[in-house]
C-alpha cells in the first residue's frame, strides 16, 4: 500500500544542513494500523508529511498503491492526496469560520462533488463519529474531543484508503483520547482503512498493529 525506499530529508539553510530523515525504508500493507514513535524532533512528522505528499523527500522513492509518486506533477499530487489520503492533526485544523458540516465537506469541494451529494456524504461521516447533531455548530462551540471527531469525519468523508494521523490524541485528555483512538481502530477494523499514526503515547501505540520507532531521523525499530 505504502512503500518508502531509502527516504532522506535534508533541511538546508545558508549555514546549516540538518538531516531530518536518514535512509528510511518502510512498507505499510493495506489495512495495517501503524504507529510511529520517537522523541521530539526525530523526524516523525516529516516522515508523515512525506507519506502524505505534502512534503518532498530529498532522496528516495515514495510509492502508494503501487504508483511511484515521484513522477507526478503538483496537480496530480493534489488530486491523489484528495482521493487517497485523509489527514488528522494534533491541533485539529478546523476552519473556525465554517460550520462543522462545512468543514467536513471541504475535501469534497476540491473533488468537485455536487452540493447535495456532498451534504449527504458529510452527514454520513458525522454520523460515523457521533456528531450529526452538532453539524450546524461552529468549531468554537465544540470540546477538544468533538473537534478531533469532526477532523476525523473530514478525513474519512472522501472514503480515502489511507489515513495519516499526526498525534491525534496529543491535545486531548485520556478519556477523549481513548474515544478518538476507538474511532480510528473501528475505521481500521471495519473499513480496512490503512492508518499511519504519529504518537508520543505508548499506550495508544500499543493498540496499533505495528510500531516503528525513529531516533535522530533513523529507524531504530
Amino acid at each position, binding site marked *: 500500500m505504502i512503500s518508502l525506499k531509502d527516504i532522506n530529508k535534508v533541511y538546508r539553510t545558508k549555514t546549516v544542513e540538518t538531516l531530518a530523515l536518514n535512509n528510511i525504508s518502510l512498507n505499510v500493507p493495506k489495512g495495517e494500523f501503524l504507529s510511529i514513535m520517537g522523541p521530539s524532533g526525530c523526524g516523525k512528522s516529516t516522515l508523515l508529511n512525506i507519506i502524505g505528499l505534502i512534503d518532498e523527500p530529498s532522496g528516495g522513492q515514495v510509492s502508494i498503491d503501487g504508483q511511484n509518486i515521484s513522477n507526478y506533477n503538483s496537480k496530480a499530487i493534489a488530486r491523489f492526496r484528495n482521493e487517497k489520503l485523509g*489527514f488528522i492533526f494534533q491541533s485539529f*485544523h478546523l476552519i473556525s469560520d465554517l460550520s462543522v458540516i462545512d468543514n467536513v465537506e471541504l475535501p469534497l*469541494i476540491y473533488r468537485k462533488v455536487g452540493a447535495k451529494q456532498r451534504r449527504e456524504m458529510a452527514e454520513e461521516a458525522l454520523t460515523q463519529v457521533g456528531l450529526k447533531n452538532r453539524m450546524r455548530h461552529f468549531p468554537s462551540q465544540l470540546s477538544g474531543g468533538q473537534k478531533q471527531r469532526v477532523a476525523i469525519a473530514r478525513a474519512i468523508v472522501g472514503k480515502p484508503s489511507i489515513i495519516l494521523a499526526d498525534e491525534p490524541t496529543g491535545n486531548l485528555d485520556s478519556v477523549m483520547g481513548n474515544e478518538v483512538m476507538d474511532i480510528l481502530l473501528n475505521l481500521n477494523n471495519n473499513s480496512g482503512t490503512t492508518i499511519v499514526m504519529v504518537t508520543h503515547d505508548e499506550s495508544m501505540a500499543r493498540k496499533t498493529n505495528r510500531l516503528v520507532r525513529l531516533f535522530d531521523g533513523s529507524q531504530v525499530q
Partner: protein
Amino acid sequence: MIKHIIKLIWNKKKSNFLMFLEIFFSFLILFAVFTFVVSNLRMYQSPLGFDTEDMWLAHLSFPSELDSATVADTKLRLVRELNAKPEIISVGFTNSITPFSGSTWVTSNDDNGFDLQTWVVEADEHYGPTAGVNIVEGRWFNEEDALGKYPAVVFNRKLWEEYFDEQPVLDSIYKLNGKENIVVGIVENYKYRSEFEEEYPTTLFHKPVHDAGLASLHIRLQPGTSVQFEEEVNQTIAGITKRSDFIIENLDEKRKDNSRSTWIPMITLLSICLFLILNVALGLFGVLWYNISKRRSEIGLRRALGATADNISFQFISEIMLVTIAGILAGSFFTLQFPLMKLLEVENIDYYYAMGLSALIITVLVLVCAFYPSRQAAGINPAIALHED
C-alpha cells in the same frame, strides 16, 4: 466553490465589512469625480460652433448722446477701414453677449403655442462669416434682411431639435418677445459661454451693422498676423470712434482662460482621486497580506485536503472580488438614483459612464492588489504551515 467562498465571506462578515465599506466609499468618490470629468469632457468634445483662432474682439461703446446717424457713420467707416487692411479678413458686430464674456440673455415665452426658452444673441450680417459660424440649413443674415417685413433670426440645431423636432422651419414665423420674426437659417452649434457647457437653445437676431446696440467688434485676421498689429488696430479704432475706453482681446486666449477654470478643478480632483486610489491600493494590499499571514494554517490544510496552488489563488482572489462586487453593487444602487431621479443637470449617459469607469478602476485595482498576495498564498508550503500553530 463559489458557494463555499460566499459562505466563508458571510461567516466572516464583520472583518469583511470594513473592506466592503472601503470599496463602497471609494466607488462613490470615484463616481462623483468621474461624473464631473466625463460630463465636462463630453461637453468639451462638442464644437463651439465658431472660430476662436485668429480672432480679436473689441468692446466699443457709443455714448447715448450720439444720434443714430452718427453712430452708423462711425461704424460703417470703421468696418470699411478695418476691412481695407491686408491683415484683416473681415469684421462683424454683435451685442455685448460675446463668447466667454459670461454675459447671457435668456428669454422664454409661449408665443409659438408651446413653452420655449432660448438664449439670445444679436449679430449683424457680417458676424456669421467672420466668426466662421457653421450653417446647416438656410443662410446667414444679409443686408436685405434689414428691409424685410419681419426681423430675421437664425437659431441653433439644439433649439430646432428641442422645439421644432427638426421639422422645416425656414421662412416660417418664429415669435419671440411679442414680435414676429422670420427664420432664415440654422447653425450647427453656438456654444458661446464655455467649452465646458451644454449646447443651449440659442436664437441669433439680426441687427444691421450700423445699429448702435451692436458694439462688440469681432475681427478675423489673416493666419500668422503678429501681435504688433494690435497697436495699429487700436489706433484705427480710437481714431474713428474718438474713444480710448476699449480693449482688444485675443478670443483664443479668452477661450483658454475660460477653460482653465474647469481644467484646474478637473485635474485637481483627478489628482486627489489618484492619491485616493493609491491609498486604497496600499490598504487593500496590506489587508490581503495580513489576511493571508493569519490564514497560513488554513491554506496548509486546504493544500493537504487536495487544493491545488491555483485553487488557493482562485479562492483568495474570489473572496476579495466578491466583497468588491458587493461594494460596487451597493454603490451602484445609490449612484443609480442620480440618473433615475434626475438629481443634477447632468446627462444620464455621463452617470452611466462614470459608474462603469469607477467599477472598472476598482475592479482592476483590486485584481492587481490581490494577485501577488494570492500567488504568495498559493506558494505556501503546507508541511510548514500546518506545523506553525
